[in-house]
């Protein structure tokens, strides 16, 4: 499976990977800004991007805290969203074929973008290059942009004056949007939103989102029993 790449293919993969890295990394500024608006300090914000390094989970943690949720609810929501990276890893493992410390290092870079830029490659050499370049450039730029956003967010005063609380909702919707491509997913999205809103007056902040996660488990499990696809 390992092969050599001609220079044109190599530079094409590098260019695509860096391009995705720039596009994705830049929106780390929005994460940095909404995170400090949610009440985290700049250190905690940067630690999230360095340690967690998976955008949807990071937005989820700060989103739950922003709505007054307990840190535990935020952490659980982030972990639930992080489970999709496990599935990415399953697909990537045979393709990348790394073991030992290389695998441990590569694991940190398993995210939406690095997966997308490597699973389509025709052999292991190209997949490794696409994964490494994309994951590496997103990591560097995402963390730099987080720092910029956190510092800017810290000095501008009341985040509500700038609509940054509304920006969190916009960010979640933008992350959700490409997943609304099937009827099943749209039904689950509406049901989850309804369940979450119904739970808001009844439960502590942060819990409604976790309750809505139960909708996914229920539909997934029922779908398995009745073999309903799409």
């Amino acid at each position, binding site marked *: 499976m390992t092969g050599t790449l001609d220079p044109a293919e190599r530079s094409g993969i590098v260019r695509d990977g860096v391009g995705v890295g720039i596009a994705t990394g830049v929106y780390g500024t929005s994460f940095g800004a909404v995170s400090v608006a949610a009440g985290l300090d700049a250190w905690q914000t940067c630690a999230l991007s360095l340690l967690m390094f998976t955008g949807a989970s990071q937005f*989820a943690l700060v989103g739950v805290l922003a709505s007054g949720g307990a840190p535990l609810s935020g952490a659980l929501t982030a972990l639930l969203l992080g489970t999709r990276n496990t599935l990415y*890893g399953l697909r990537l493992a045979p393709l990348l074929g790394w073991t030992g410390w290389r695998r441990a290092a590569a*694991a940190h870079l398993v995210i939406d973008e690095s997966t997308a830029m490597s699973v389509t490659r025709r052999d292991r050499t190209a997949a490794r290059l696409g994964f490494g370049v994309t994951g590496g450039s997103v990591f560097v730029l995402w963390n730099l942009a987080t720092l910029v956003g956190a510092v800017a967010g810290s000095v501008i005063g009341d985040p509500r004056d700038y609509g940054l609380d509304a920006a969190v909702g916009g960010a979640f919707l*933008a992350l959700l949007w490409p997943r609304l491509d099937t009827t099943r997913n749209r039904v689950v999205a509406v049901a989850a939103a309804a369940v979450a809103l119904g739970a*808001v007056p009844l439960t502590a*902040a942060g819990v409604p989102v976790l309750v809505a996660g139960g909708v996914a488990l229920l539909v997934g499990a029922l779908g398995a029993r009745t073999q309903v696809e799409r």
Partner: protein
Amino acid sequence: MSVWAAVVLAGLGCYLLKLAGLSVPARVLDRPAVARVADLIPVALLSALVAVQVTADGQALVADARLLGLGAAVVLLLLRAPFLVVVFGSALVAALARLLA
């Protein structure tokens, strides 16, 4: 649990979830039901986060400038605007609504 504990523990947990995918044999998790649930969890959680983020104020549901910001996000997404434009566009609309209110 403090905010720092949530940051560190959830960060570590997310890393271990990634490492597990690269490490466990594919057949352990690669089943239709697991794949379906894994596909639906982000949909359900993100949708719930949108709903709660724009309407909840503590334990009350309110309609305020955030809802207008979300409307702007919908329009921008329909126009295929990039992520950053959607995020800051919804902020801008909410900020303007508050300024004018």
